[in-house]
């Protein structure tokens, strides 16, 4: 039988058993109560307990069994697994109904089960992180068995070239070079351009909104800025490639410079627009939580409003502002669609932003969408690049959290 059919069968039988458990349990509880015994819980609660004791262990056995099946290969036929979990369900049904006794705390038992289920749900987020780490690291390690880590980190030529031939058994793949320096140079170039756009505009907008703007402007401007963050990145990518890049080429041509249509400036600027709201919204919150006594003190000493903002408010809010910029930077480093659509494909180690250059995320996408074997060094290199990306963004996020925590402790604000 097919897996879906087995799954369907399992669910139907379990549902039926659950219904049986509910009604039998409730009937028995009602009977016990009618006989005059004082019970610890309501009939419905006994019924629900019976349902839980029927379904819970059976689902657990089924899930663990299928996991083992996947991990160890198909040693147990799925039919046996189905039968085993249904037997467990029937046993659970019997136990659940037998537990309908006046001195059994059904409500507390349900409470315990629910607590376990909720804990299980909370564990999924941890599993996700471990899943990401595990999947990236295990594939990256296979890559580093083929090519040295040192060469990957310090090499200046990225040329996967013939590696797919090696995977297919032809050639030895010796021509392939995986030096990631040009990729990271491109990534940091585009990120730097993005931050050059986003940090001044984001910070100044935040200053205007928190220090100058009347309430009405604030209530309009904040959601309007949030719209910038809600636009899908694939749309920004199209905008960068079709509209902004030709403008950049024309402007460069006007000054007698030669710009590529895949230049780094266009994706950089558009990415900067995208991260403006991340920076402005966090900076806004931070500036708002600088205590008013500092502003009053400064104004009382005869400073103008502008001087107060520049010399008192901003220095006080600096840890928070840096934290916002770091968050924006981590966004920009991991951003994929804008660079895939607007930046180049050629690994290019250059300091000229008007040339085409490629980024880490572009290479990840390029090496996973081709027709190569999964085992080839080029495909696996995507995971090695992903690992570095993960480490860099994780570090940035942690530093950002630490900075904002320091700010919070200094001024004892709780709303950040």
């Amino acid at each position, binding site marked *: 039988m097919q897996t879906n059919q087995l799954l369907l069968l399992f669910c139907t039988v379990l549902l039926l058993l659950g219904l049986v458990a509910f009604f039998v349990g409730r009937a028995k509880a009602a009977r016990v109560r009618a006989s005059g015994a004082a019970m610890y819980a309501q009939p419905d609660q006994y019924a629900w307990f019976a349902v839980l004791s029927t379904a819970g262990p059976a689902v657990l056995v089924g899930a663990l069994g299928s996991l083992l099946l996947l991990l160890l290969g198909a040693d147990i036929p799925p039919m046996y697994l189905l039968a085993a979990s249904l037997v467990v369900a029937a046993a659970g049904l019997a136990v659940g109904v037998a537990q309908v006794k006046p001195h059994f705390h059904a*409500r507390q038992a*349900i*409470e315990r089960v629910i*607590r376990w289920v*909720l804990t299980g*749900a909370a564990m*999924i*987020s941890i599993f*996700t*992180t471990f*899943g*990401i780490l595990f*999947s*990236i690291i295990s594939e990256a390690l296979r890559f580093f068995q083929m090519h040295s880590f040192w060469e990957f980190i310090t090499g200046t030529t990225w040329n996967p070239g013939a590696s797919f031939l090696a995977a297919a058994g032809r050639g030895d793949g010796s021509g392939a070079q995986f030096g990631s320096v040009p990729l990271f140079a491109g990534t940091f170039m585009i990120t730097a351009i993005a931050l050059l756009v986003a940090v001044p*505009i*984001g*910070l*100044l*907008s935040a*200053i*205007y909104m928190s220090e*100058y703007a009347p309430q009405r402007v604030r209530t309009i401007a904040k959601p*309007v800025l949030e719209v*910038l963050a*809600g*636009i*899908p*990145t*694939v*749309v920004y*990518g*199209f*905008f960068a*490639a*079709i*509209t902004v890049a030709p403008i950049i080429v024309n402007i460069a041509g006007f000054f007698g410079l030669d710009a590529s249509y895949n230049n780094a400036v266009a994706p950089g600027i558009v990415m900067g*627009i995208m991260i403006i709201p991340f920076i402005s919204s966090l900076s806004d919150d931070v500036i708002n939580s600088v205590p008013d006594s500092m502003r009053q003190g400064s104004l009382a000493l005869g400073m*103008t*409003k*502008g*001087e107060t*903002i520049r010399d008192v408010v901003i220095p006080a809010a600096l840890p928070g502002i840096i934290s916002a910029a770091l968050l924006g930077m981590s*966004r920009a*480093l*991991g951003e*994929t669609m804008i660079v*895939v*659509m607007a930046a180049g494909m050629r690994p290019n180690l250059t300091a000229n932003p008007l040339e085409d250059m490629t980024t880490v*995320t572009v290479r*990840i*996408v390029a090496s*996973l*969408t081709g027709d190569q074997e*999964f085992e080839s060094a080029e495909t696996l290199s*995507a*995971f090695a690049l*992903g690992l570095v990306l*993960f480490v860099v*963004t994780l570090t940035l*996020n942690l530093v950002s959290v630490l900075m904002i925590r320091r700010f919070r402790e200094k001024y004892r604000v709780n709303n950040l």
Partner: protein
Amino acid sequence: MSHSFDEISQQLKRRHRKSARLKWISMGALGLAGLFLVLFFADMLSKGLPAFQQAYINTEVRYTEEASRDGRLAFEEELLPLISRTVVRVIPLQLRNNPEMIGTSEQRWMLATSEVDQYLKGHRNRLSDEEKAEIDERVATGQVDLRFNKTFFGSGDSKIAENAGILSAVVGTIMTMIVTLLISFPIGVMTAIYLEEFAPDNRFTQLIEININNLAAIPSILFGLLGLAIFINFFGVPRSSPLAGGMTLALMTLPVIIIATRTALRSVPDSIRHAAFGVGCSRWQVVRDHVLPLAMPGIMTGSIIGLAQAMGETAPLIIVGMVAFIPDVSASFTQAATVMPAQIFTWSGEPEQAFVEKTAGGILVLLSVLISLNAFAVVLRKKFERRW
């Protein structure tokens, strides 16, 4: 050295001018951000709106015996370069379904090629001067016209520009979102309930909290790598399927829903919990019957916003293979499908001029869906928000 009053008041004036300048600069920054937004939308509208119209040619169609083998034979010879190549298959198919039509003829609006379409819209095209003259003549008599583009909303992807539509991507998006919501909503809400209402304040809880905040900031493409390595390669979920894409996006949406739900739960005042505990409710009864119903509008708002975010996501879906060419609407969660952002990405890579318009048209559809979802979330919050 002392300054005269004049010098001091000069200095004061300078300081105040400087102060005013900061105000104008910061206002300008905000204005610049707004200007970007306006320019962006104007650009998308001007590029995308023409996609909702398509050139059609009104001509006589002769349903002859030969036409049921090659649809092109149903038309006048001189019109053939202007009529879409799709007729080759469309006309025979129509005749096979309605054999009684063979031998008749009718006046019909037929789909023109994308070159005619682009010419009528004033874009770059590859028509010869005679063909242009021919079209101009027919436009004057009303035989060639721009009409509402049914194909764009009613069919799937195609390599023939005028025949490409967004329907299969819309269906794929809906299916992927169903999977995403079914997984991330229950798990996210349960996690948030655990953290807010049940969890003791210990190392384990702190670990989960740090983890969730960290997951929210991980680049989306890394979720794609997880989906590829674990869901597809390890668990054997079919590549390119809404199931694989939906599961990957669910993990991405999870932190958004958890954070929104926690905020909503926290905004329910403790007095409600105290009252419920006071009349003897257990912890789960307090949550289920009192806290959760009050927090529901906030949870819904957060989930809708999270879903809208997932709907616009492309990078992880490219990694799990959802950029396939899907001409037909798929009906199964395990078949290959594509989603709207991925369709936009595919079209943006097509070299033909007509696809630029399709891409922008697809973007307009996607943006209007996202904006209405977000607006709905805001309305929901405004309507049900309670200040305690």
